[in-house]
């Protein structure tokens, strides 16, 4: 009896010891991959950005003193904000239905949410061109219905960029919100009902406040992902809707100024990281990953 217990303890100890090394070994392949294809190129890029015939921050000064670059940055923020808000307004009700639906309806709805993922987003962006063009499906339908006299200019505006990006980012918003909402204990809603809360009171007083951490997290993810969009604004946007990724491509492939392109890229990276850090301070998105507030 006693020896049995001792040997079990020894076994337990050995397992803990082995478990100590194994997770690190498992991390090996991805660590090597990331080092070779991410960390090293990143370092090279940072190197480019501060190299102007010798070590210099001149390219960063150029960035902040050229009105064109500043307005591109402003546009990028505005479009990302618009896209985030659009995704939130469209995505929250869907996520709520998902979180409160029965298992069968939930499976069906999840499939529908994920369906667009099976179509490449370049294809989807081109499809929007067909739909939103001067004589596209949307304008033609509106004219046929007699709602408008002349075609609306939707394509190559900020609106077409936002529509295309919202459609692409909506699943990300919905799934992130849904994951956060699933963690809201349904017995809290029962408790609200049992103590006199109508369905709408129960939603606004209990469900909605408890879903806010998920809202903050999902908005952050959507916003930061929006910042780096390239194909969609390139295809659907006009000249005034140039986003920062398009700028990077133009500078590096048309102007062949790798040093400036690197500086813009580093700036995008730093801004994204800064947003995550500041945001986490205030809204604690760690909760999204199951951490404690």
């Amino acid at each position, binding site marked *: 009896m006693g020896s049995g217990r001792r040997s079990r303890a020894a076994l337990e100890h050995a397992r803990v010891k082995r478990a100590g090394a194994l997770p690190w070994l498992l991390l090996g392949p991805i660590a090597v991959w990331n080092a070779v294809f991410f960390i090293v190129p990143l370092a090279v890029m940072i190197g480019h950005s501060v190299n102007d015939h010798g070590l210099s921050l001149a390219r960063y000064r150029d960035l902040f003193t050229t009105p064109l670059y500043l307005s591109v940055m402003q546009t990028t923020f505005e479009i990302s904000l618009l896209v985030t808000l659009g995704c939130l307004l469209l995505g929250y009700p869907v996520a709520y239905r998902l979180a409160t639906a029965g298992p069968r309806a939930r499976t069906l709805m999840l499939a529908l949410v994920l369906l667009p993922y099976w179509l490449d987003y370049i294809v989807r962006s081109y499809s929007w061109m067909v739909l939103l063009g001067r004589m596209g499906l949307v304008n033609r339908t509106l004219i046929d219905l007699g709602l408008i006299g002349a075609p609306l200019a939707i394509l190559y505006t900020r609106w077409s960029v936002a529509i295309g990006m919202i459609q692409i980012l909506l699943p990300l918003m919905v799934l992130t919100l849904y994951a956060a909402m699933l963690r809201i*204990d349904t*017995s*809290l809603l*029962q*408790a*609200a*009902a*049992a*103590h*006199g*809360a*109508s*369905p709408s*009171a*129960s939603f606004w*007083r*209990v469900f909605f*406040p*408890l879903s806010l951490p998920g809202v903050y997290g999902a908005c952050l993810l959507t916003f930061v992902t929006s910042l780096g969009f390239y194909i969609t604004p390139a295809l659907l946007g006009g000249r005034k809707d140039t986003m920062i990724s398009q700028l990077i491509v133009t500078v590096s492939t048309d102007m062949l100024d790798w040093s400036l392109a690197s500086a813009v890229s580093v700036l995008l990276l730093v801004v994204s990281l800064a947003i995550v850090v500041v945001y986490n301070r205030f809204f604690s998105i760690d909760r999204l990953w199951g951490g404690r507030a």
Partner: protein
Amino acid sequence: MTSGAAVTLERLTKRFGAVVAVDRISLEVPSGSFITFLGPSGSGKTTTLNLIAGFLEPDAGEVFFDGRPVSRTPTHRRELGMVFQSYALFPHMTVFDNVAFPLRMRQHLAPSELARAVDATLTLVRLTGLERRYPRQLSGGQQQRVAMARALVSRPRLLLMDEPLGALDKKLREQMQIEMKTIHRAVGSTFVYVTHDQGEALAMSDLVVVMRDGRIEQVGSPRELYNAPANEFVADFLGSANLLGGQVTARSDDTLAVTLAGGTTIYAAMPRDAPAAGSRVTVLVRPEDVDVVVGDRAPRGDVLAGKVREVIYLGETTRVVVDTGEGVLVARIAGQRGDDLVPGDTVGVRWAAAAARVLPSSTPA
């Protein structure tokens, strides 16, 4: 003092797929009583509570509050209070806001009146001074009290409780049982309580409803259920029980002779519906009625000879497990009396004939 709602269940039925969770149960819960649904998991007791709360809709049958059918009344208009197993306190609200919640939903009180009502209820559950804390900053026992306060604050006529003490340790649980009884007397609402803990059911309830497989096995006061269980299931589920199977061989005015499988004849008190000679019956003897005698002093009453298998010292009492020719019997004797017993001892077990109860022949299959 509120007057409690009378609850009536009429052939209430709930199915989940092919499983009948609650099977045509009918029951009258008197106004102002403390009633407990007791049963193992899967017996339908929580489903019944959820039907009363309105979280589930019955497939058939009806729930009445004071004679009015409520199946079409949504939960939030049923004027309930409820304590959940997990407490279900709102994590984003302080203790004060949690307790004030039902008042804010149901009545429009001036802030000072609201504060007074919350304060009075927190005093009732003996939890004051923590109003500005959040639930996660409280111990399990404190959270339990907040949950009680929230359920009671609007003075609902019907209070539903789903294993509310399950997460507490034994000592606190026993203390809360006493407090709940006191609170029940103070507020006068009807309390409907669900538990799988028979001790809890016996300690607090006016009426206990024993459930199994979606059906009611027996309804009665704790005393009735313990002393006159309707069948083996109830006998075994409430307290521990020695159950002896045998055949009625003789009957007199107040005793019944039952011959057990091993050939021993024992005597039992005559039940209300006297079984015919020759019929098969089960005899219940509670462990606390069984005495263990050492050596061969002149025996009185029924004696079964046996060997001690295990002696378990529990402080107040000692449980002695004895192998007899008629199977294993458990005796519960005063704590110190088992001191000189060791496994392997030859002993006799006996009990007064009046302590042996014949169970109604309820096995209809």
